[in-house]
């Protein structure tokens, strides 16, 4: 068991792109850690750098207490599940799972034994003699996980573990993955572009953009208090309302309304008010607008208001409380749910 420590790592592609840029990160022993970000943000490159498939141009990677920066992938004590699973098509499931032992020249009997042991834990026992091509997507994913588990590594790396599954299976696999990680207590780093997946699975999340970490925190922290407007935009299944505002007399003026603001701002300072649609509810005073659309989300509905200055504001309302189209509605957020961002650099203002 071991944690992963990344210090000042930069990974540069031959074409000069800095996919990972002077990045520091610590993954604690036994933690389930998510690297989250849009495509091209450097999250997969970072994962591959930990695996040793990319060599960093600068910085060090430490696993446990060992500096592995210059070690080849096979000697780092990591196991990895690739996005396409990379199950060898010419080998059976058993041979695939036992492959890490075959590389180490373990006896054939030991390989077979290890394969059936691992397969038991992943409910793959009946499929040991099949080839990957004969498995369903979910079974393939579990076989790939099995191979990684059989490697007996200190750190497990998963590249987009759920992206190749269809929507319904994805939920099932997510639960399975979380339980497996909990049972094994194996330090696990996974990459995803799906914020819901990161929120649901991870103990902690690093939100990445342009090769840097924008925010590091627990799912709750990242969801409730995004550190900047980029994260605010990226996290949440319904996008956060981000409204331009101006500071005045300790309040902020936005969307034709006047709301309590952060202290200590000079009058006229431009800023951005952020509030999640889930945290807005009808109230006596607050932002007022006309209901322009109502979208059914199942247990709730997403309501969009057009404010007098044209700003759209969205909020969710419980089912059967949907307002009629064209009605005027005033909404406000619970104290502490309103976030204020610097209009220039997008950073969260304390308040």
């Amino acid at each position, binding site marked *: 068991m071991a944690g992963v420590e990344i210090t000042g790592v930069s990974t540069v592609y*031959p074409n000069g792109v800095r996919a990972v840029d002077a990045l520091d990160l610590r993954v604690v022993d036994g933690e389930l850690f998510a690297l989250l970000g849009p495509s091209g943000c450097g999250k997969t490159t970072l994962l591959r750098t930990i*695996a*040793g*498939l990319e060599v960093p141009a600068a910085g060090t990677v430490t696993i446990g207490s060992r500096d592995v920066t210059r070690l*080849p*992938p*096979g*000697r780092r004590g*990591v*196991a*990895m599940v*690739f*996005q*396409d699973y*990379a199950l*060898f*098509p*010419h080998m059976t499931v058993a041979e695939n799972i036992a*492959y*890490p032992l*075959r*590389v*180490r020249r373990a006896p054939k009997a030991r390989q077979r034994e290890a394969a059936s042991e691992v397969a038991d834990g992943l409910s793959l026992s009946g499929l040991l003699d099949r080839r990957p091509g004969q498995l369903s997507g979910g079974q393939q994913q579990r076989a790939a996980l099995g*191979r990684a588990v059989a*490697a007996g590594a200190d750190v497990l790396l998963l590249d987009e573990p759920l992206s190749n599954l269809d929507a319904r299976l994805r939920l099932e696999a997510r639960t399975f993955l979380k339980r497996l990680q909990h049972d094994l207590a194996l330090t696990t780093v996974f990459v995803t572009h799906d914020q819901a997946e990161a929120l649901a699975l991870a103990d902690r999340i690093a939100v990445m953009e342009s090769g840097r970490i924008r925010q590091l925190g627990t799912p709750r922290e990242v969801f409730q208090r995004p550190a900047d407007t980029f994260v605010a935009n990226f996290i949440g299944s319904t996008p956060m309302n981000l409204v331009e505002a101006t500071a005045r007399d300790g309040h902020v003026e936005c969307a034709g309304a006047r709301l309590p603001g952060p202290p200590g701002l000079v009058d006229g300072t431009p800023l951005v008010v952020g509030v999640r649609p889930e945290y807005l509810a009808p109230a006596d005073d607050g932002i007022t607008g006309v209901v322009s659309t109502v979208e059914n989300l199942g247990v709730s509905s997403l309501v969009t208001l057009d404010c007098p200055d044209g700003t759209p504001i969205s909020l969710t309302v419980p089912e059967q409380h949907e307002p009629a189209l064209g009605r005027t509605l005033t909404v406000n957020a619970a104290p502490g749910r309103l976030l204020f961002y610097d209009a220039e650099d997008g950073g969260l203002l304390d308040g």
Partner: protein
Amino acid sequence: MTPGWVVRRIGFYALVAVVLAFFAVPMLWLAGAPFDARPGFGLRWPEWTSANVHATLRHPFAVRSLVNSLVLCLVATAVTTAFAALAAYALSRVRIPGRDALLYVLLLLSSVVTGTAAMVPLFVLMLQLGLIDSRFGTALVIAGGMLPAAIFILKDFVDAVPRSYEESARVFGASPRQVLGHVVLPIARPGIATILVWSFVNAWGNFLLPFLLLRDVDKQPAAVLMRTLQDEGGSANLTVIPVFSLLYSIPVVLLYLVVNQRYGFRFHGGIKS
């Protein structure tokens, strides 16, 4: 079923029959003449005999030339496949400096420098190296001519193999040798089989290079002996030539049947056999 439709159908099948006859008639001779007691040039139902086969097997050069063909082909095929596989893999996976230019030149060479266009310098080269009448030397020349195309076909295959297979093996600790042996070779097997068949068929039928470079009858392959027998002419040779042609054709026909059975004749751009 209008009368027009019937006429069109009849016309269609007549056309197909003519085409079929065009392609089949010259070949049918190969099925009858070898076993005909009085073989001629024309197509006819044979008076069955196996005397021709015995005569051919007793011919001073027939069997020997087939052995020569086999040696020539096996060397050329083995060299082509091994060298092309190594080169295709490295070119597919590693960005060697100047790789793209190299690939472009190879692609160009594969079609520009044909044995026909380069026969004079090839002949002079082998003459000065003292390799005229060397079967091994001739096999290498044939391999050199097939290599660019072979590299291309194989590189296509390797390019289609996901890189995650090799990376995965490496993460689990496999050495480069293990990656090649456990993962790359088994997965690239259909491609390698294709190149084996392709280069064998190509080398087997190659006439010009052995004709040019092997002047000693003892060392000439079947392709050249066919020509010699044809040149000698006379009806005496009609006992030998049909059987010999058949024997010489059997390996490629068998390969063709196997390939057709196992893979179907898929189209690989630019392959000619």
